[in-house]
Structures are given as structure tokens and as C-alpha cells.
């Protein structure tokens, strides 16, 4: 037994979980998450998610990729290996558009995937909640809210009372 993760609270169905999420959100907790066997529509609103920062990462990657691809082609055809092809100018921007476009799309996709992984803290080999036997039912028929001990509002007594109040059927303190 080592570091304390925080409380894992079980709820009986998506409806009670949804309303509980709204209460946790309104109580001002920040380091918490909900765990369900299937996607619960609208849960991101109940949890008060703000907009993802991934699009900005995608934009920066996409524009840089496109610019790098364009610049690379200009360099190759004017500096590194100047070859006149079908009597066209050395710097023929038209010819660079397909590669610029493709690399722009590729860089956007890579940026989006990497951004999503990094912002989600992935990849990770383990999660503290895996020490809980009750949590195994998360991929079957149980709905959970986990409030982490790192949260500024976390208090061993008050948080437990709060989780009971919002309808948790089972609460446990998870320790790694």
C-alpha cells in the first residue's frame, strides 16, 4: 500500500451517475472523472468539460507540415537540384501543391493523434483504480465517479459525505 488515489464511488445507473456528475461539477471539484461501460450521451456537459486544446495542436502541426513541404520542394528544385522540366520555371508553385496538401493533411493527423495522447496522459501502463476489485465491473454493469486526493477540495471526511449525499451506493478509498 502506498500513495492514496482518492475515492471511488459506485452508482447504480447512468441517470444517477449523470446527476451525480452535475453535483460534483457544481461543487467545484477539478481532479475527478467518471467511468462507464458505454458512452453516456451528454456526460461531457454534466462534467463541465471545457473545449479541447487538440484543435490548436492540429492547426500548428498542419500549417508547419504544409510550410515545410512547400519549402522543401522549393529548395530541391531551385537550390539542391535545379532541373528544367518541360520548359517550366524552376520555381513552379503549381507542381508543389499536391505534396504540400498531402503533407499538411498527414502532419495534421499526426498532430491530432499525438496531441490527444499527450493531453490524455497516454500511453500509460497502469492506473491506480485497477487495484480496486469493484472497479472491474466498470466494463460490465457499474458506473463510477473517482475523485482524486490531489484535488484542492478533497477532504477524507467531507468528500465521503458528499458522495453519499449525491447517491453513491458504495464508496471506497483506493490506495496504490
Amino acid at each position: 500500500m502506498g500513495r492514496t488515489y482518492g475515492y471511488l464511488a459506485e452508482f447504480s445507473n447512468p441517470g444517477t451517475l449523470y446527476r451525480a456528475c452535475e453535483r460534483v461539477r457544481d461543487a467545484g471539484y477539478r481532479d475527478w472523472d467518471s467511468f462507464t461501460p458505454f458512452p453516456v450521451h451528454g456526460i461531457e456537459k454534466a462534467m463541465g468539460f471545457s473545449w479541447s486544446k487538440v484543435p490548436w495542436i492540429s492547426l500548428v502541426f498542419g500549417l508547419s507540415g504544409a510550410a515545410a513541404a512547400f519549402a522543401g520542394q522549393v529548395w530541391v528544385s531551385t537550390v539542391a537540384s535545379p532541373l528544367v522540366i518541360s520548359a517550366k520555371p524552376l520555381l513552379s508553385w503549381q507542381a508543389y501543391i499536391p505534396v504540400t496538401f498531402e503533407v499538411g493533411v498527414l502532419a495534421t493527423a499526426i498532430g491530432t493523434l499525438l496531441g490527444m495522447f499527450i493531453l490524455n496522459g497516454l500511453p500509460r501502463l497502469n492506473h491506480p483504480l485497477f487495484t480496486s476489485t469493484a472497479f472491474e465491473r466498470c466494463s460490465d454493469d457499474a458506473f463510477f465517479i473517482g475523485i482524486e486526493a490531489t484535488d484542492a477540495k478533497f477532504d477524507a471526511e467531507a468528500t465521503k459525505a458528499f458522495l453519499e449525499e449525491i447517491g453513491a451506493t458504495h464508496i471506497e478509498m483506493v490506495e496504490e
Partner: protein
Amino acid sequence: MGHHHEPPAESLQIPDGHVWTKIPLLGAALAVLGIAGSWFTAGDSHEFAFSYLTAALYVLTLSLGCLFFVLIQHAARAGWSVTVRRTAESLASNLPWIMLLLLPIFFFRHDLYHHWMGAQAADDPILVGKSAFLNEGFWSARFAVYLVVWSFLGWWFHRTSVAQDESKAVGATYKLEKGAYLSIPVFAITITFAAMDWGMSLDPHWFSTMWGVYIFAGSVVSGFALMGITTVLMLRSGLLKGWVNVEHLHDLGKLTFAFTIFWTYIAFSQYFLIWYANLPEETMWYMHRGDSWETLGIMLMAGHFVIPFFFLIPRTMKRNPVTLGLACVWILGMHFLDLYYIVMPASPQGHHGFHLSVSDLLLWIGLVGIFIGLGAWKMRKNSLVAIGDPRLGESLAHVNF
């Protein structure tokens, strides 16, 4: 998402005295002033014919863009679009009138297509080779086919959907879906051939296999932009309240955004292949669009692609009615410039360079006046939403994640 409360029925109809009831009159006034003003400011009837072709293709492509919206919604069995589909149906249902508006192209045919319709074509080996397709009789017959087919499609999809408002019959939805499956190939073939007949044949030596798709792309992006601005303006003036919300606007914005890219993809592909191969019989079309026309070409690259592309990327721009409306109006303006770039370099007044005249603009305003007047007039007669559609609930509950 289960139960929904039916929005107020009074926002389904344009009430008496509402600002939209005045649009037909406004449209008629614009039509009279625009067409008459253009006729008197035009150099001669030969020049007027080209201005007319540009303006007529503008209102035609908008109508066809709306018809295409209706076709794909039925073919995809779309649920989200039920509350905005009637707007497209109403605008496309004026195709019989819009086709009448195209008749002057037939009467002006010797002004517009004299290069291959005139007697001198018999001395031109290239035109002789194309004469099996490019001859006055066959061209006129095809004109009649477009007139009949598009008038019928615009009328039928609107009529069948309106009939369902009362009957609530699910069978009507199946009928519309089957109709859409049959109509899509017909639509694709007619718009491709009409694009060749009225646009490509202005330069009868020239050919491009991308041409039909290019005209289609412009038609669809401007049709979607028209749907966007019309829906925004209806919400602004108190119509459709509760029936159409930000989720529907977001999707119209997404379609407009996507087809802005599609137009660019097609326009660039056409240019790119011709530029690369560098064959004189293909490059001539762009040679005719050199010098001062090139400025307009660059304006199109920036205005028809770069600006709306970056403007519409963020989710908030598509969900905010003001920014979405601005983008749609901008694209509708760019579509006119696109058609102007297609038609006018072949005209006597545009032969020596880009010169946007008062006559061109007045005629455009005049025909757009007829278009919006007919649209508002048609919308007033029926429910603004297809309330008999079995997927109405799905549309009302629609949410973008």
C-alpha cells in the same frame, strides 16, 4: 434523446404583415429596375446576352444546389435535416420558373455560341469533328430536356413533401427516397451536359473533363451557403423558432465548409492537369484568362478558398448565426465572380480584359430579385418545416458532439 416538446406551431407559417411577405414585392422591384437598367446601360444586345448568361447561370446553379441538397437528404435518409429541408425544397421548387428565365439563352444563342453555330463552323476542321454533338438542333433538344427534367424534379420533390404535411404518411418518405435514388444519376448527367452546353461551348475548341464537376461544385457550395443565410435570416425574423436551432446551423455550416474545399479541389485539379500537360488546345482557356483576368483568378483563389476556409474552420464560427451568415453571403458573392470568370472572357466586352460593368451588376441584381421574390412567395404558401416527416423528432433532438 427520447421525449421532445413540440415547438410553437405559429413559427411554422409566415404570418400576414411579416417582413417576409414584402420580399416578393421587393424582388419584383429589383427585377424591373435591374433588368431595365441593365438593358439601357448595356453596349448592345450582343454584350447584354453575355451578362444575361452569367446572371441566369447564377440563379440556376443556386436552384440546382438546393435541389441537390434535397436529393442527398432523401438518399441518405437523413434525420437531422428535416426541419431545414423545406427551405431547400421551396427554393428548388421554383425551377420551372427559373428555367423560363433561362429561355433568353436560347433566343440569344447566336450571340453566345456563334463560333460553332454560325455557318463559318463548316470551315473549321475541329468544329466539324465536334459537330455530331455541337450542332444547333441537338443543343436545342438538350435545352428542352434540361427544362423538362429540372422543372419536374424541383416541382415533384416539393409537392410530395408538402402533401406529407397533411397526410403524415410514411409511404411518402419511401417514395421520396426512391425518387432521390433515381434522380441522382439524372441530375449528375444533366448538370454535366448543361455545363458543357452553356459554359464550355463558349470556347468550342476547348475541352476539359473536369468541367461538369467544376460547375457542380460551384452550384453545390453556393446552394448550401444560400440555405445557411436563408435559415439564419428566418430565425432572425422570428420564423422557425424552436424548430431550427444552432445544431442545424452548425451542420449547414459544415456542408458549406466542406464544399468550399471541394470546389477548390476541383478548380485546382482542372488547372493543374492543364498546366502540367501544357497542350495548346487545353491551355487556351487559361490564356484567355490572362492579363487583367488573372487578377480575378487570384481573387477567386483567395476569396473562394483561403478566406472562407480559415474563417469557417473553428466550430464557433459555424455555430454563431452572425459569422455563419457572413461566410454564406461572402461565398454567394464569390460564386458570382466564379461564373463571371467562366463566362465573360468569351464576351465582346471581356475579350480585352476584366471590366465589371454596371450593366452586368444590374442584371445580376435583377435576376436575383426574381429568385428571392419567387422563393419568399413559395415559402409563404406552405409550412416552413416538413412537419409530416416521420424523422421530425430525430431532427428536433439533433445534437452535434
